[in-house]
């Protein structure tokens, strides 16, 4: 069964509820959208992240109340280097949404969504530990997987698989 090609033009996706609501609220916040393999992805600008996430959780039509995952992809050496990925799920509507935020390698800071979903606590600590992205506003941003005194961020692409020891 051949794959349907990905839809990357945001104008073609304006009829989707999540894209429409976000554009209606603030067109500057949405940097792009993609519908590929039956999954919707929306890129959000970092400056508007907290407000957009609050809207996604609280809006009566959207109600994404479960934060499934926070992770990161390292696109070294291309810029912007990091892409923080948030997987959201609406239990009542039974829908999923992926939100992505692009970060440059010299500016790897992003506000923490712990005020919106408490489950981001461990997830953001893991992304900080393994990628080195600083989550502003996180109450306890320390290493979680690696030992406390480890140097370096292992999941980055310039860190070798074999490690340094």
């Amino acid at each position: 069964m051949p794959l349907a090609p990905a839809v990357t033009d945001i104008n073609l996706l304006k009829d989707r509820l999540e894209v429409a609501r976000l554009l209606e609220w603030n067109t500057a916040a949405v940097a792009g959208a993609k519908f590929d393999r039956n999954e919707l992805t929306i890129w959000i600008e970092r400056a508007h992240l907290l407000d957009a996430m609050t809207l996604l959780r609280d809006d009566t039509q959207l109600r994404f109340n479960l934060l499934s995952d926070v992770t990161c992809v390292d696109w070294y050496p291309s810029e912007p280097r990091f892409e923080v990925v948030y997987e959201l799920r609406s239990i009542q509507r039974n829908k999923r949404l992926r939100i992505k935020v692009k970060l440059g390698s010299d500016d790897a800071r992003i506000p923490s969504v712990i005020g919106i979903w408490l489950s981001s606590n461990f997830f953001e600590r893991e992304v900080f530990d393994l990628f080195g992205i600083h989550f502003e506003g996180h109450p306890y941003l320390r290493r979680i997987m690696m030992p406390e005194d480890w140097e370096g961020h292992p999941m980055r692409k310039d860190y070798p698989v074999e490690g340094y020891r």
Partner: protein
Amino acid sequence: MDPAADRTMVLNMGPQHPSTHGVLRLLIEIDGETIVRMMPDIGYLHTGIEKTTEAKFYQQVVPLTDRIDYLCPMTNNLAYCLAVEKLLGLEIPPRAQWIRVMLNELTRINSHLVWLGTHAMDIGAMTVFLYCFREREDVLRLFEMVSGQRMMTSYFRIGGLALDLPLGFLDRLKKFADRFPGNVDEYENLLTANPIFMERTKGVAYISAEDAIALGTTGPTLRASGVDTDLRRDEPYSGYENFKFKVPVRTEGDVYARYLCRVQELRESCSIVQQAIAGLPEGRYKADAPKVVLPDRENMKTQMESLIYHFKIVTEGFTVPAGEVYQAIESPRGEMGYYIVSDGTAKPYRVHMRSPSFANLQALPKMCEGRMIADVVAAIGSIDIVLGDCDR
């Protein structure tokens, strides 16, 4: 972690502890016997599986996935294979899907048996442990029959299964599935109406539905707090829409409710296995995609193209079109998801495992604050964490 006041003490429930079900370290600040604050410290079982997958071909990642949640290895295999098949746009033949469901539910039974045995033993009921492991021995022998391995089966492949079911497997499975509900009755006889068990578990480690959702809890831990969600029913995968099963939901939100949910899930899994045995379709056990799935052994030995495809797939891997996918399934612990990013080559660019134990562990401090130390043991058992799943 420093004690907040003079009268509190920080107790270290260290990584080596018989009741933490793995290498989990808990820093508990106590005031007498009551817990004031708790902080889990994990990472003792971190083996860097996510980093290792970036250095391997897609088909070589399957044995790595077994070892993530080592109590339900086939569930991890299934989640990964489904994610890659979604990336490829590959359709799996119905026989392979039904066998995957059958073995996935058998794995759920396996995992819940370990949970029940160890949880009851921590609370004090030692007999249940041996009863559960007697059934688990039968299930492990079934796994050995089908894949050659008792635990780290790696039986599912991208595109279907490694081999077809051996002769005699369905008969043995049917004998097990016929006998199993009687065994669950035995466990319930020992525990469900037992006054000591009820004293230790009713009202203990309560968490409300809103808190559970906010903390990212999924699976039986969430269902016991009243939220009716099950990925097998809500986002069906691998043919689950063909099976009839009930999703146990309770509202009390304490350890006893989680116990009842999981015991009911044992019965439901057994019923799904019976339905799978009864309706198993004939046909291929792997998809017909020569560039991705290894050809049949006989074809490989007699036809030239099959031999070339086999050689190419094993030595160079198969390329997957660029893109990303998030595939979540219902593991015995909750929502297990695989986020795979492909850049068009034969090795995955990024594989991230959304492990249910990692998220469920965040609910533990909320459940235990204000309770006594002995309740921590019951709470850890009731969340059913596996540290391999937590730390990867």
